[in-house]
């Protein structure tokens, strides 16, 4: 399983975030909100913040599950249950 984090921050801000928490997965810099708009993390191309949502995407490239409200602490367990 591959985890990809995403927000509207710059590459530099993502780099600082990854370093601070030792994240070992890619953090995507969606500065143009294209990803956020495509996946419903925002409705506004100028939004400052992405919604706290998540998706499980299957090996076939299709959405297996959508998580409209992610609680960061409980999410890993929730995901593992759905795999």
């Amino acid at each position, binding site marked *: 399983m*591959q985890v990809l984090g995403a927000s509207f921050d710059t590459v530099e801000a993502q780099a*600082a975030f990854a370093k601070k928490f030792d994240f070992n997965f890619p953090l995507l*810099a969606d500065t143009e909100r294209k990803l956020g708009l495509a*996946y419903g993390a925002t409705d506004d191309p100028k939004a400052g*913040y992405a919604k706290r949502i998540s998706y499980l*995407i299957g090996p076939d*490239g*299709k*959405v297996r599950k959508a998580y409209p409200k*992610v609680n960061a602490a409980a999410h890993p367990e929730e995901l593992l249950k759905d795999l």
Partner: protein
Amino acid sequence: MLEPGATAPDFELKDHTGQTRRLSDYRGRNVVLWFYPKADTPG
């Protein structure tokens, strides 16, 4: 939001190391795409 069964839109974005990532790079694997509001600031 996208519904289960929908094709996940491909993308091409830089990650925190400057490397370009595409969803299609991960075909054949499960992917968790996790959105968060804001990267923490240093310090």
